[in-house]
């Protein structure tokens, strides 16, 4: 059943030309240089220090590391992060 729904979604993206983030429940990330980062479609904060932010996603995790990280704003599905961003990494659910 779950596999069927995933397939259907991929099909929708392909045929109906829908934006992937809407359909596939993956995060949409907007970055302004290394200064600011806007992440949509997250599922909660797992770990936050001034060098690392770990966000929970629908399947997997998003790891952002950098320096002097500050969460400027946070909403149930959105995060606005500022600071010197060093790297972004996806950890897929095995």
């Amino acid at each position, binding site marked *: 059943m779950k596999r069927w729904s995933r397939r259907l979604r991929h099909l929708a993206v392909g045929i109906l030309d829908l934006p992937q983030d809407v359909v596939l429940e993956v995060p949409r990330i907007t970055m302004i240089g290394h200064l600011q980062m806007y992440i949509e479609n997250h599922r*909660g*904060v797992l770990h*936050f*220090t001034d060098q690392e932010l770990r966000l929970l996603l629908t399947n997997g995790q998003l790891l952002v590391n950098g320096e002097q990280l*500050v969460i*400027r704003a946070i909403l149930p599905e959105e995060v606005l992060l500022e600071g010197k961003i060093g790297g972004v990494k996806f950890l897929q659910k095995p």
Partner: protein
Amino acid sequence: MRNLMKEWLKGHITITIRGKRFERLLNLAVREGIQLWNIRRIAPDIGKCDIWIRDYFRLRPLLRQTGCRSHVERREGLPFWLIRLRMRAGFTLGAVLFLVGLYMMSTFVWRVEIRGAQQIPAYQVQQAAEKVGIKEGAWKAKLKETKVLQRELLNLLPQASWIGVELNGTKAIIQVVERQTQEPEKPLGPRNLIAKKRAVVHSIVAEAGKSMVRVNQFVDKGQVLISGVLGNETRQALVAARGKVEGEVWYVSNVSVPTTRTQYHLTGQQQELYYLVLGSYAVRLWPFEAQSYAQSRTTEERYQAGYAQYALPIVWKKVIQQEMAVEKKEIGRDEAVETAKRFARMDVLSRAGKGAIIQDEKVLHVKTENGKVYLSIHYSVIEDIAAEQPIVARPPVPHPSGN
């Protein structure tokens, strides 16, 4: 654009949160709809964030749930201001009272200014204004409209042709425009017009009185020209003689003009000197070394600081020296004569009085001596020769041969 005013009204605080499960608290708060911003980690178990005051109270059960402790670092916004103001009630009251007082005071007329009243005495205008209600200390709200006030004032002051009332802040300006009344002519006493100089009558027009001389007649000084006595010996009337008598008068003017002319002109070189004057001592501050000019024109400006009649004893003086060059020029005899004539004409016209016309000019004598040109010129000038002479006692009946 964020609504800064609204944010300030709501008021927010900066809190530090101490606890192991900071992230869990964040997630819970977000799910509850509590707004948090500027979140950062200071130390492994200390976080810091900003939060609305209202949300802070909703956060407290969550803190207990996650075992965190909060501490308020900074308070910002209107609510905290209000608390501070309540703590300084006297100060707040004073500020409010001051503003209220200022407003109240500005609703009164503090000064009445009367402009343009010259013939009408100012106190009369003032009295009229008081009757209408414009006086010092009057409440502006109780005054009628300026147009109505103007009309009422004009009724009270019939000498004025227009009155303007203007309320300028706490100042009431009453602008008076006076009626231009023609000065009634002074009743003139009976008088004669007599000659003030020896002359030959050039023209005579008698407006009132009897003309006693004819054109081209020679008159002596003091001779009656237009008589104020009318009628014959038996029936007489005295009038103020009026009229215009012009006579030809002769003048001789002696003028001397040097044949060398000295001219001064500025060379363009100038220097500014600055002095500090203390009592009777003047100390030059600038420049250190002043140039000295052979001939110069000096202008001086003084600046003194002070208030009203009090003045500092120190005076700042600025002197501007402009260098002048002297030029001596030899002028010819003809030019000298021309210059002399010009001076002579001016001299004669000033002697003859207003409205005089030079009829004839004759050079009598020219002499050059000791670098000067001496001229004597004869002028015949047509000028007004009439002078007034009141008839005091009952005069003897004048007859044409003079008085």
